[in-house]
């Protein structure tokens, strides 16, 4: 386990995090990164870290998670963005340097980056 000092840091992290926890749990945006063998080999881990970094830099609340292969291996890394009340969009061959534009246009301005989108899933309702 980490040294005692870092455990004390963790307690501080907890205290601060509890304050804004409610807001975070209610975020309506989910970003899903394919992390099967194909995704990993294509660089999905780096793409996911780029997403986390960009969200943090712009202070955007979104739930980021990973899933296994969905069978479209040739288009990995695959990144899905799901927002309440909107169709789920799949982006293909997403490299880390594409992330700032996707976050800017899709999450902030609300426009799908059509040239990189490869799939659209209608809302379930």
């Amino acid at each position, binding site marked *: 386990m980490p040294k005692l000092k870092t455990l004390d840091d*963790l307690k501080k992290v*907890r205290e601060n995090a509890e304050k804004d926890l409610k807001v975070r749990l209610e975020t309506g945006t989910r970003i899903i990164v394919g992390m*099967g063998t194909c995704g990993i080999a294509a660089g999905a881990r780096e793409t996911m870290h780029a997403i986390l970094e960009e969200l943090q830099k712009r202070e955007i609340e979104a739930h980021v*998670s990973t899933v296994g292969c969905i069978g479209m291996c040739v288009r990995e890394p695959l990144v899905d963005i799901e927002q309440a009340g909107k169709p789920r969009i799949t982006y293909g061959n997403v490299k880390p340097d594409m992330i700032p534009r996707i976050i800017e246009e899709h999450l902030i301005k609300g426009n799908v980056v059509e040239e990189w989108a490869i799939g659209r899933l209608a809302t379930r309702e």
Partner: protein
Amino acid sequence: MRELSLHVLDALENSVEAGATSIELVIEERLKADTLEIVIRDNGRGMSPEFVRQVLNPFVTTRKTRHVGLGLPLFAAAARRCNGDLRVESEAGVGTTISATFQHSHIDRAPVGDMAGSVMAILLSDRPVDIRYRHTVDDRQFELDTAEVRKELGTVPLSHPDVRGWLQSVLTEGLADLRPPGLL
């Protein structure tokens, strides 16, 4: 794969897909003995003896989305071309253990790579899973048990940005301390 940590991430994903809630990850680098061993032990649903026998065959997979499963065969190939091997032990209902060995100094051995990144990636998977990670380089040791971290955090999830930052720095700094500068 360019890094051993990517094979590890792939194997950890398998464990999560198999319903594991707790995974033990041990990496032991013995420089004097010139060996590197990676062991991944999970409490997932395990496999039948018949499936274990076939699991290194790339044309065998449990998936419905495609007909090949390359993860373990690639990991095994990486180990074998470095004078090592990969073994799979599994019991249905109990869990699976994967052990891969490498000749540490082998010219074809990929660097360990970004283990912190791989562990972080797995902690963000949809299903909550705890990892007990121990990494040794000769007599230096790093250890992190996310179950203990979770206990300390109460209701705050591991995916909280502040917690993520803390985990990332504990992993990165702890792993960097394992080796003198310049050693892969």
